[in-house]
């Protein structure tokens, strides 16, 4: 297994924290939105867009690109911010999040931002669409194309996911890689109190998937998981990414109230100062 160098990890950590700063700023300017999930998934998105993905930000419609399906559309600040930092559009545009006429709708909408693969928001529908893309890609003999689907753990309550999970295994979709944001929170509280999901690895294994369980905020583990998943021969792969909600802002980590809340000016300044300090230590 190729391992990721310590230098590369440092670069990615700094990049991720810069993306986190953008997320916090854009949410503050928007005045509403979802903070915890976006910050928790920033390391995964950073790895995805800066290492894993075969894509051309300057040519978003490039036919041979890998596909990214964000199922839990409410964490879109991390999608938008990572895309901007990768060069899809100017970082300055992030300030328009949730504003009238913006391409950056409150939940992603293709009609406004055609460079995203799907519109999303209503939960539990992304995985099915990713399965459809993986099947279509196979029909076109596009086996080199990977379909990445990002799913929240809470949305696995939706039965439709398990319909899609069965189909993906039946069709042996080795070109499908699903990342579950396992942060144990949903709107009404802990996932295990609202509707216990239990051991997701065991569940997916029982559905005949490859499963990889990682710390979703550790680039070494993220890198190993993606590399393994990309080599699957005859099964879809799920990476259960255990993430810390609001990762990077100590005062907000694990606090449920940040699920659907945006920071005020003071909170934003405090958070950004904290992230800058972390980055200085990395250097």
């Amino acid at each position, binding site marked *: 297994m190729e391992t990721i160098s310590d230098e590369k990890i440092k670069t990615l950590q700094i990049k991720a924290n810069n993306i986190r700063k953008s997320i916090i700023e854009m949410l503050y300017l928007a005045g509403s939105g979802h903070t915890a999930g976006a910050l928790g998934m920033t390391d995964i998105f950073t790895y995805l867009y800066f290492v894993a993905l075969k894509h051309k930000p300057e040519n978003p419609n490039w036919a041979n690109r890998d*596909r990214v*399906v964000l199922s839990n559309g409410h964490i879109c600040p991390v999608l938008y911010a990572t895309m901007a930092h990768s060069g899809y559009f100017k970082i300055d545009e992030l300030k328009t999040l949730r504003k009238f006429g913006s391409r950056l709708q409150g939940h992603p*909408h*293709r*009609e406004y931002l055609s460079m995203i*693969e*799907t*519109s*999303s*928001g*209503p939960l539990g*529908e992304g995985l*099915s*669409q*990713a*399965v*459809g*893309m*993986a*099947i*279509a*890609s196979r*029909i*076109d003999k596009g086996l080199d194309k990977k379909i990445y689907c990002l799913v929240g753990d809470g949305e696995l309550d939706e*039965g*439709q996911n398990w*319909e*899609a999970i*069965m*189909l993906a295994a039946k*069709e042996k979709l080795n070109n499908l890689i699903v990342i579950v944001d396992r942060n144990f929170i949903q709107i009404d509280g802990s996932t295990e109190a609202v509707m216990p999901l239990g051991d997701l690895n065991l569940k997916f294994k029982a559905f005949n998937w490859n499963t990889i369980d990682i710390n979703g905020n550790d680039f070494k583990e993220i890198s190993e998981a993606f590399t393994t998943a990309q080599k699957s021969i005859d099964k879809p792969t799920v990476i259960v990414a255990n993430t810390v909600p609001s990762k990077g802002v100590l005062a907000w980590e694990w606090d449920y109230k940040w699920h659907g809340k945006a920071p005020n000016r003071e909170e934003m300044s405090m958070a950004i100062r904290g992230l800058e300090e972390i980055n200085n230590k990395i250097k």
Partner: protein
Amino acid sequence: MLNHNLKLNPKVFNDDVTKKSTREGFGEGLLQAAIENDNVVGLCADLTDSVKMNIFAEKFPDRFVEVGIAEQNLISVASGMAAMGKIPFVGSYAIFNPGRNWEQIRTTVCYNDQPVKIFGSHAGLSVGPDGGSHQMLEDIALTRVLPNMIVVSPCDAIEASKATLAISKTKTPAYLRAARNDTPIITTKETNFEIGKAEIFFKPENGLASVGIIATGPILYNALIAAKKLDEKGIKVKLMNLSTIKPLDREAIISLAKETKNIVTIEDHQITGGMGSAVAECLSEFYPTKITFMGVKNIFGQSGNPKELEKYYKLDIESIIETIEILLK
């Protein structure tokens, strides 16, 4: 008299008129669409023979996906395939597709603006013995309310086949409604079909009509026979086949209303939100006209053969004649 310009089936008034189901017409149209375009794919939820996708699936096994009894997944998988350039046809019973999976249709197909073609078979009371749980009477309402959607309800198997081919060529989502049982062939291969175009199937030999009947789906046959019998009694009627419910042929509807000042709509569907409602939305805005709605009146269906059910729910030939005679008194 039949509108001869349309080259309708000359044997349509015979007792031994040929019968075939609209779902079979769909199956043939799908095969044709798939032959013409490599991007056409098919998905089904454990009803492949029943919704007549078997002809396609046998010919193109690599372009067919069986998803099991899972209609929400069915439609969203199709959306994903459309995102990769495919033209997916998804088939099931109308009660499940668009019934079970409506929000998925709204979000992953219409909101996402993907050209997924939804096929709802076994629609209407004509499912018969299966009973009310399977008699989909709300699908026109569910689909025509959605932005970007085309809604087509063909009157016979030949029109169903042409409509299937036609929707395979649009870049938008579409819903095609079909029925289970064999119904009379009203049109011919030569009859024009165009999405969004209504046609007058029956008209007085001379002079203006005093009633304009608008029908959709195979129930149009009852309206056609009723029109002929009324004509024989000296009551002049025009009958319109409104097979495309969205986009609506406003011009044709307004023109019929201007001539007759008296519209009767007939559909194997709830009156609320159905084809008649679409006609009413158009006429109340552009040419307010008295409308009589014939359809299912805010109740569910029940078991019975299609003829018994038509009679009970007042969609049979006699009920149409009676309604129009009372209307003109």
